[in-house]
């Protein structure tokens, strides 16, 4: 590794009385891939956002290539200092094409007399995709029509337009499927080869240990230590993050499917009108965890949307107990079902509303009195209960959800549904963007739901998660059902990849 590219010294960041970063000092060298690990709310994203100019620091100093560094915006960080970042939350303009999204704010370089040369812009975008091996994303269509991971790749391409020598990736891989993650890993290798650096924030600790050279661990806004990735294990990393030994396994330890014979949902020849889901049929049993996995474009996320009724569909989804055909989200809710979108910020949460409002809204009808009036006390009790049960780290229930860290947002998103009496639940990437502690908690919640005979459809981009938690795995490929595998001896990552690929 080469010279120090970025030196952060005694950096502090306060939000009112809250100290998000306390006396943080790290240095990153050229050609280094640095992981930044820590629990949700430990200050990782705050540190990254200060480095890339999204927000100012309260104190301390940053030097880039030995020179004082204080960008006032991501644009300045990119264009003047060659520091770029892909943020955790989705940041695209849905009504603009992919190309326009990549160069938005920088279109002047393609302009003459105020008119933008779109062809030159397209060529430049293609060059970036080719240069960094970003795969294929339709760039001419409106970005709003692209999948979550295609949008994430667009954001990555946008960051690369600055030709950065320091790239910050904030939980980007958790939005990506198995094959698209490889694009990021290849990019990391290229960066290393070209003596550029990456600061990567991920809650996937196996990934952190596998792909990083060094890892800085943060806890409660402070740096605990920076260690060589070769010298640590996932368990020791967990221990450093949490400050105590994490006991037991994340996942189930049994090797047999374990669910009742009673069918809860009967899905027959389910197709989405756009062809993303094509002829999927299965039964979901009482107390079963059915995982859906597949590569990018396999249709697993679209399957969740079609089941919930937010995607136009044909075929039949029947709630067996009430013989209701589930056509709309209201049908799902009426039959004691719930759905959590992968796209948490756009489809899941009311970001400007308080934690309290987000938590009680799905239960409001249930809690209403005979005349439809709601008791503020009962609502408060419910949201306070979920707030404590899910260990949501915030100043109070009155804090707007938009100001929470990614992991805490996911806790609110899950808590609002899982705090109810459910018969079945569809979870699309429930552990996306959450730390090891919350992940363990979510798996524990899933286990408890299973014990209560609640049925779960868990759509996951992480094979280990699906293998660890599911009774059966539905493997999808190009929108079609490729296999339905029972928990047992063939329940291995390699066997699944063989079907998926």
């Amino acid at each position: 590794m080469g010279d120090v590219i970025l030196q952060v010294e005694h950096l502090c960041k306060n939000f009112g009385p809250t100290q998000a970063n306390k006396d943080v000092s790290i240095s990153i060298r050229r050609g280094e891939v640095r992981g930044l690990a820590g629990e949700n709310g430990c200050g990782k994203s705050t540190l990254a956002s200060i480095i890339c100019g999204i927000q100012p620091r309260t104190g301390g100093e940053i030097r880039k290539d030995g020179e004082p560094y204080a960008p006032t915006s991501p644009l300045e960080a990119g264009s003047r200092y060659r520091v770029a970042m892909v943020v955790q939350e989705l940041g695209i303009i849905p009504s603009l094409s992919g190309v326009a999204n990549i160069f938005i704010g920088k279109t002047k370089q393609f302009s003459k007399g105020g008119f933008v040369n779109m062809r030159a812009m397209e060529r430049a975008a293609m060059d970036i995709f080719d240069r960094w091996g970003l795969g294929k994303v339709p760039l001419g269509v409106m970005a709003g029509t692209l999948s979550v991971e295609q949008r994430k790749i667009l954001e990555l391409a946008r960051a690369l337009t600055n030709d950065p020598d320091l790239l910050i990736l904030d939980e980007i891989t958790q939005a990506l499927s198995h094959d698209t993650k490889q694009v990021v890993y290849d990019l990391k290798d290229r960066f290393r080869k070209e003596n550029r650096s990456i600061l990567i924030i991920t809650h996937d600790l196996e990934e952190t240990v596998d792909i990083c050279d060094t890892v800085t661990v943060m806890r409660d806004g402070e740096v605990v230590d920076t260690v060589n990735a070769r010298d640590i294990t996932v368990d020791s990393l967990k221990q450093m993050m949490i400050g105590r030994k994490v006991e037991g396994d994340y996942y189930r330890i049994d090797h047999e499917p374990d669910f009742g014979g009673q069918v809860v949902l009967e899905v027959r020849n389910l197709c989405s009108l756009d062809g993303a889901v094509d002829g999927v049929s299965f039964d979901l049993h009482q107390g079963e965890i059915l995982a859906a996995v597949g590569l990018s474009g396999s249709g697993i996320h679209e399957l969740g949307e079609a089941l919930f009724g937010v995607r136009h569909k044909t075929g039949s989804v029947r709630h067996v107990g009430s013989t209701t055909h589930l056509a709309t989200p209201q049908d799902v809710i009426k039959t004691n079902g719930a759905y959590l979108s992968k796209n948490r910020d756009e489809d899941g949460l009311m970001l400007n509303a308080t934690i309290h409002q987000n938590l009680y809204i799905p239960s409001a009808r249930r809690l209403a009195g005979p005349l439809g009036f709601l008791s503020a006390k009962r609502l408060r009790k419910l949201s306070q209960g979920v707030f404590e049960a899910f260990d949501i780290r915030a100043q109070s229930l009155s804090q707007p959800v938009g100001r929470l860290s990614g992991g805490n947002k996911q806790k609110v998103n899950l808590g609002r549904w899982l705090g109810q009496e459910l018969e079945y639940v569809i979870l699309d990437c429930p552990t996306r963007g959450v730390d090891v502690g919350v992940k363990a908690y979510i798996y524990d919640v899933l286990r408890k739901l299973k014990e209560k005979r609640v049925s779960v459809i868990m759509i996951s981009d992480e094979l280990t998660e699906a293998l660890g938690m599911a009774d059966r795995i539905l493997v999808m490929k190009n929108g079609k059902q490729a296999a339905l595998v029972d928990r047992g001896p063939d329940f291995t990552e390699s066997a699944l990849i063989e079907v998926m690929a």
Partner: protein
Amino acid sequence: MVAAVLLAVFFLLNIVTGGALITANNLRTIFVHSIFHALTAWGLCFIFTTGLCDLSIGAIVLLAANVGGQLGENLGLGYPGMVIGSVAVAIICEHLCTRCSIQLGIPSWVSGLGCALIFEAILSIWANAIAGAGRQLPHIKVYRAFGKFPVMMSVWVAGLAAAYLIYNYTDIGLNLRAVGANENVATAMGIKKRQTIYVATLVGAVFVGIAATVQISYSGFLSAKTGLGSLSSIFKGLATLLLANSFEDTFSMPVGIAIGAIVVMGIFNVLTVMGVPSGTGQEMCLGAIVILCGALSHLHYKGVVK
């Protein structure tokens, strides 16, 4: 699909009206009548896409058209005075309305309604003041070329070309769409939000000013309205914009507006041919058409539209 359905409806209505709809003369009438609404809708498109909902456009058209008429016809400044006067008034009024919303931090529809009342009142005060001297708001007799076919056609072509190029191929076009869709991302990408909104509304105001010139040149006279009476004059433009929204997957917004304006005016033409009364009967249909166009523009959206 929407376009195919509309075409099919047109052919069906042609049969219903005994072939009166699709004739050269009638098509020309529809086209001529669509030009004012297309120009207004292009203006609305630049203003509304930034996220502003300015309801003062109708009042601006009336005021701008009369000022343009006064300068061109009554003060003898000819076509340059007419066009420059209308456009300048539209720019000033639109800028005031936008600034009012941004600087005071109030919703744009509130500032729009307030400004509409003010602009209507200004025109009304002017009309009353000169009525005392036995005069009226400008009657255009000489400078009516903007209301006649060849010039109107040229204005339409130029308007379409300008709107298309600005919307799709300029920094301002891309930036205003970015600000309207996700202002946080746009700001993070270095787009100056306020500047973008001001420039976008300026572009929109130019279209509104030209629409005002065309309208007074075509009608010869535009009377003052009060109590938000001006609002209804942009409903056809609004229907056009909503319809263009439903075409957006197929056509760029400016092209969709050109087509949408013809479709909307075609529907009114059919209503006239079928003998629907031009007062309340057609206004009821206009209301229904605005709702229909709104529904079409969100055809593939499954959530609750707000």
